[in-house]
Structures are given as structure tokens and as C-alpha cells.
């Protein structure tokens, strides 16, 4: 990692005809890292990516890539590559022509072009498909062509806009691993937009959580999971998300505060000896464990994790104990209160 960050977004804002797109985006990205922009739809994560790509121009702020101010440079002069959600393969060109498109535009000599093509095809497992047209490929193959096009020219920065959202669940999992491995093998910097927190948590070195055009939290997946900065982060990250309990419902916590607890820190207790008494709403069996949904008038998102298969009839009242040292407190505005 170099001393100076590879990519810097400094106070970026973008408005659409007065309506807010994104604002106050400050973000630094180290070379060779995998950064995920995470958030619900409409949170501005794609806008941020497009600003970085040069497909939109920011109203405020500066963008630096590799030490150069590229704020007003067009997309074609930013030396990056991008994988689109729809893959954006040129339907009139063959796989090989699609992959070599950028190198042809940049007038790379033919011999070198073919060498890079072969290497990219090899890496993405597309050898033998060079002469096919995109519409003769399956969704997963198209996705790999888009990846090949992004890596073939050896750009150091690669942007990905929800590249897995058009794949089925099983393929998504496999490609997720492939992308991560590719990024590490090539040592490239990836900025990855997704609304799926599992994707962000499993792939990224650094997760940027966004909502309503603003950054909520930047941190490693571990930080986002165990130290959410606010209730939004607590409820967005993790499966199941963090449960939030009204402070008044728990002894020893002040009114108006919200207490956050992860499912793994909730334990079933003997009747009458728990912190909270809840009603069972549903049981979700996942194989190794069962998630038991709980209902309490002063809490939301309470889930109890039990190993193996456990079936508690809905409506039954049970008691739970919370592991005290793991609880997080949030103030009235939903911000985390520092512990200590």
C-alpha cells in the first residue's frame, strides 16, 4: 500500500434538478483493496460509482485517482474499467471483439491485444467462446465476458455496479468467490456496488454503508457487524440483523436509549428468569441452526439462534437472556453511545 491513497473522494455532492443525489461523500481507497458501497436502493451508491467513473460530474468536491485530479476528466480519460449490472456487452460484436474493444480504441498493437485476450479468456474460463455473440451465451458466461473486458487492459481500478444481481443464487455464490480471487491475484483495486449485505461483508476489505445520499459508516466488515455507528447500520448489516430494544424494557438502561443485540448473544432462559419475555412468531430452519423469530412490544427484530432443528409453536411465550457485555447503546438520534 502506498503512502498516498489511490482514490480520494473529497466532499462530493451531486444534485438532480434540486433533488439530492449524494452529498458529503468523503472516502479514501487504498491501492489493491476491495471496497464495497452498500445500501438500500436509492441510497446513492450507484451515483457515487458513476461519479467516480466519470459518467456524471459532481456539483461539489474533488475526485483524485492515483494522485491526479480527475474531477472534470471524461470517463474515457480516467484509466479505469467497469462491469455493469446489465453487463453492457456490445451485441453486434463477438466475445473476443467485446473484450478487446478498449484496447482497439486505445490502439494497442494487434499481437499484444491477442496475447492479453488469451490471458483474460484463460483467467475467466472462456477459452473457446471467442467467436460467439453475447446473445449465444448464458447469463453466467455473459457475466464472465464483462469481467474479462474489465480486466483485460490491466487497468488498476475496476468499478463494479451490482454485477451479480442478474445471476441465480448458486451461481452468485460461485462468481462471488471468483471475483474476490481475481481481485487478489491481479492486485487491482475494486469498488463494488451492492445492496446485498452478504456480498459486501464476504468480499470487501472495507465496507461503505450509505443511506439517503450520505455515508453512514465506513469500516471493515467486522467493524460494521460488531460496532455499528448507528441503528441504521445495526439493522442493515448481518443476517439476521441486530435486534433493537427500547432501553426502558431492560433493567439497568436509561429511558430513551435503544439497545442493540445480535442474535448469537441471546440465549433461551428458564421461565421467569430471563431479561425479556417474548412471544414466538415463527421458526426458520436453516440446516445447522434454526432462527426463531420473537415478538416483544418494546423491541424489533428479535431473533433467537438455536443449533440444529428446533420447533417451537408460534404464540408460545418464552424467556430470553441477553449477554450483557455485548450490548450496544444508541441515543435518541440512533447514534452509538461510546462504551466505557
Amino acid at each position, binding site marked *: 500500500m502506498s503512502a498516498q491513497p489511490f482514490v480520494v473522494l473529497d466532499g462530493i455532492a451531486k444534485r438532480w434538478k434540486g433533488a439530492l443525489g449524494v452529498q458529503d461523500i468523503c472516502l479514501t481507497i487504498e491501492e489493491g483493496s476491495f471496497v464495497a458501497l452498500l445500501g438500500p436502493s436509492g441510497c446513492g451508491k450507484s451515483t457515487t460509482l458513476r461519479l467516480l467513473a*466519470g459518467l456524471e460530474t459532481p456539483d461539489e468536491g474533488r475526485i483524485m485517482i492515483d494522485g491526479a485530479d480527475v474531477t472534470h476528466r471524461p470517463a474515457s480519460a480516467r484509466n479505469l474499467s467497469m462491469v455493469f449490472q446489465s453487463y453492457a456487452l456490445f451485441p453486434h460484436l463477438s466475445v473476443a471483439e467485446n473484450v478487446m474493444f478498449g484496447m482497439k480504441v486505445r490502439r494497442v498493437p494487434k499481437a499484444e491485444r491477442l496475447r492479453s485476450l488469451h490471458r483474460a479468456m484463460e483467467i475467466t474460463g472462456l477459452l473457446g467462446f471467442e467467436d460467439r455473440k453475447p446473445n449465444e451465451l448464458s447469463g453466467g458466461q455473459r457475466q464472465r465476458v464483462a469481467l474479462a473486458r474489465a480486466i483485460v487492459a490491466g487497468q488498476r481500478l475496476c468499478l463494479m455496479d451490482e454485477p451479480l444481481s442478474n445471476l441465480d443464487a448458486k451461481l452468485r455464490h460461485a462468481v462471488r468467490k471468483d471475483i474476490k480471487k481475481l481481485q487478489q491475484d491481479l492486485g487491482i483495486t475494486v469498488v463494488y456496488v451492492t445492496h446485498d449485505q452478504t456480498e459486501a461483508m464476504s468480499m470487501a476489505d472495507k465496507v461503505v454503508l450509505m443511506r439517503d445520499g450520505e455515508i453512514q459508516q465506513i469500516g471493515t466488515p467486522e467493524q460494521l457487524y460488531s460496532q455499528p455507528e448507528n441503528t441504521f447500520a445495526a439493522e442493515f448489516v448481518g443476517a439476521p440483523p441486530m435486534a433493537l430494544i427500547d432501553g426502558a424494557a431492560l433493567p439497568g438502561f436509561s429511558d430513551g436509549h435503544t439497545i442493540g443485540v445480535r442474535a448469537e448473544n441471546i440465549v433461551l432462559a428458564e421461565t421467569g428468569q430471563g431479561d425479556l419475555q417474548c412471544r414466538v412468531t415463527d421458526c426458520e430452519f436453516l440446516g445447522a441452526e434454526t432462527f426463531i423469530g420473537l415478538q416483544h412490544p418494546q423491541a424489533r427484530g428479535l431473533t433467537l439462534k438455536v443449533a440444529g432443528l428446533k420447533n417451537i409453536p408460534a404464540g408460545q411465550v418464552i424467556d430470553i437472556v441477553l449477554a450483557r457485555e455485548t450490548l450496544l447503546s444508541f441515543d435518541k438520534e440512533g447514534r452509538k453511545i461510546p462504551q466505557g
Partner: protein
Amino acid sequence: MNRLSRHLDSFGAILLAVIWIAPLLFAFWAAFHSTTDAVNFNLTSRLTLDNFRVAWDGAPWLRYFMNTFLLVTIVLIGQFIITTLAGFAFAQVSFPGKDFIFILVLLQLFILPEVLIVENYAMVSRLGLFDSLLGVGMPYMASAFGIFLMRQAFKSVPIELDEAARIEGCGWFGVLLKVYVPLAKPTYLAYALVSVSTHWNNFLWPLIVTNSDKTRPLTVGLSIFGAPENGVDISIISAATIMSVAPLLIAFLVFQRQFVQAFLRTGIK
């Protein structure tokens, strides 16, 4: 009732088709028979190619063919360049007054070309292009229909392809040439068909603006050849007519499938 109306539909269609094709069929008939046999509809009469021989020697047809061919080529090239650039601007470039200017362009569709003949004549003379093929073709190059067609075709290109090409290092002209134009190929084919057949058959404007055999296209040449002062011989005129429509007719028959597909894909009828 339903069956009757269906029969009526087919009957009407066949009737219209017969009325439409009748002059062409007669021209074919007349072209291959001597004049007397042709008008008497003598079915057993001998086929002859004499009419073609006489017609061919009667006028500089090769020159006319060449002129028409050059004319439609010049017009088509000019139209492709102008409608591509204008269509792209109206579809994907944002500039002030875009909608207003586009409406002005569309208004041109409501004006019959014949209305503009005098003004066009004056303009072509001022440009010093009178009696030249460029002068014949020029007024048709900035075709409103073509601009509209290209704009629609370019608008239907997914924006991600444009963006992907720009990220890969293309400027606007590169994007236009490498993404928009190839993807609008069916539209170009359909438009080329319309343009070529229109200008192959165009008569009034070339008649006015051409003055010599050097520039005269087929239609004008044919009308001079068939003018009453040269004596009316229906068989010879038919032969000349068949000659002048033959290239277009053959081209259409050969490329019929592609043309129909191109039309279906672009949605013009």
C-alpha cells in the same frame, strides 16, 4: 357473416393488387411484342427483343443509368452523414433549444417538396450547382424523415452500451461510430431502400434542374425519350420503361427478405 366479410377482405385485396400491377404487366407484355400485337392482345404472337434494341439505340441510356446511379449514391451518402450526425445530436447530446429545433425539423415533414422547388432552384443556382448531380441531390440530403428515423434508432440503444464504450476510452465520435451506427444497421438498410427507390423514381426536380444528357437521370431521360414529339410507339416506350425499372426491381426481388426484415425491425411501413 364473418365468412363473408373475410372473403370480401381477400377479394378487395386481390382486386387492388391486380389494379396496381396491371400497368406493369402490360408494360412487360408490350415490351416483348411488336406494337400491333401488343395493342391487339394477340396471345399467340411472337416474342421479340427488337423493342429493346430500338429503345437502347434511341437515347444515351448508359449515361442515364450512370447518372441515376451516381445520383442515388450521392444522395444516400449525404443523407447517411447528415441524418447520422443530426439524429445522434437529437437523441443523445443535450444542448439548449433541442426540443424546439427538433420540432422545426419535424415540421419539414409537412411541407411537400414540390412547394420548395422554386426556392431550391434559386439556391442551387446561387451555389453554382445548376445542372450538376450534386445540385440534383443536395436539397434531399438533410432529410427530416431520416433524422427522425435515426434519432429513434439511436434512442433505443441502451445507455449502458454508450457508457461502457466511453469507459473503454471512446470519445463521442468513437461511440457513435462503434456503438450507435452498428446497432442501427437495420434502420440504415430500411432507410436506404426508401431513399434509393424515392430518388431513383424522382422526376420533377431533376427535370427542372438538369439541362443536358451529362446530368439527366433515367426518369428525365425516359420522359424525353417517350415525349409525343418523338412519336409514340407503345412497345418501345414500354421496353425503355422496363429497362429503367429493372435494376430496382431485380434488387428488390433478390434482397426481398432482408428488406422486409429491416422494415419490420424498424417499424416503418
